[in-house]
């Protein structure tokens, strides 16, 4: 069970939150000009990285606000939390094989 630091409410139990997937995925500016493969790449394809992942969470049973986490997908350690629209912080490099 994770203890997630909501930037508004403070540390809360993971059960209060919902996961929003990887953060900072930009919607293509001209979707009509994309090929099916490029569109599928935007919609479905994620690096599924092993290590620190920048991801979105929403405090759905608390203040209902979205925010970002930098979380290690191996150790589950939360390295940073930052609000929507803020620049992702520098996080240490992970060296998993």
């Amino acid at each position, binding site marked *: 069970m994770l203890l997630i630091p909501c930037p508004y409410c403070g540390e809360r139990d993971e*059960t209060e939150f919902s996961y929003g997937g990887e953060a900072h995925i930009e919607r293509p500016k001209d979707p009509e000009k994309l090929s099916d493969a490029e569109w599928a790449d935007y919609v479905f394809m994620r690096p599924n990285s092993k290590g620190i992942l920048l991801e979105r969470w929403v405090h759905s049973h608390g203040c209902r606000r979205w925010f970002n986490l930098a979380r290690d997908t191996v150790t589950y350690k939360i390295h940073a939390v930052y609000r929507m629209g803020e620049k992702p912080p520098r996080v240490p490099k992970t060296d998993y094989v």
Partner: protein
Amino acid sequence: MGDSFLRHSPLAHLGLAARATEVSEFEATKFEADDAEAGVAMGERPYRGLVNLRGPAGDKAFDSAVEKALGVALPIEPNTTAGPGKNKDSLRVFWLGPDEWWVVTPGDGPAMADRLRTALAGQKAAVTDVSESRTCIHIRGARARDLLSKGCPLDLHPRMLSAGRCAQSLCAKAMVALHQTEDDSGDGAKEGGPAYDVYVLNSFAEYLWLWLEDAAREYGLRITAE
């Protein structure tokens, strides 16, 4: 505006008023006479006025208009409440988010919404009367904190949640807003423990009440008419 005789509490069919001051037979047989005192007292506090307010905190025009209408400044610090304010109505304002509050009144929700709407005319703010969405379960007593801890993931220790603070969370997987009304030594806590108001959605109210009643059996439960 709804006529008062049409209002119906979601727990009305449980006949709580008729069971008030009842002590569950479980604790009478299980514990020694010294322990027979109820550890938890619970009752429904229905028909409260609830008004959801959204707007830009920190905006001078918004802040002052709300303060003038309510007689109290909006709470800006997370998980805090403000009130009762200068006006005679004993309202309470809950912080729900950085731009969202609840105004809780013992009286008329629609009238409170109208008052805020008039005060905020022309401003970028939203006022919604949500009085009929929830009911309030009042819990107090020496074991009230233990009871809530069984189903609520919040840290209920006095250093985190004390009288006058509020938090939105889950209780037995039902979405609730928790407001601690009394500290352990508070005057209103006759059973010698903290007191909480638990605001729960109408459709979850019966489930949560029955869950709480079951969870409270080991502490001894007294039902109160609020």
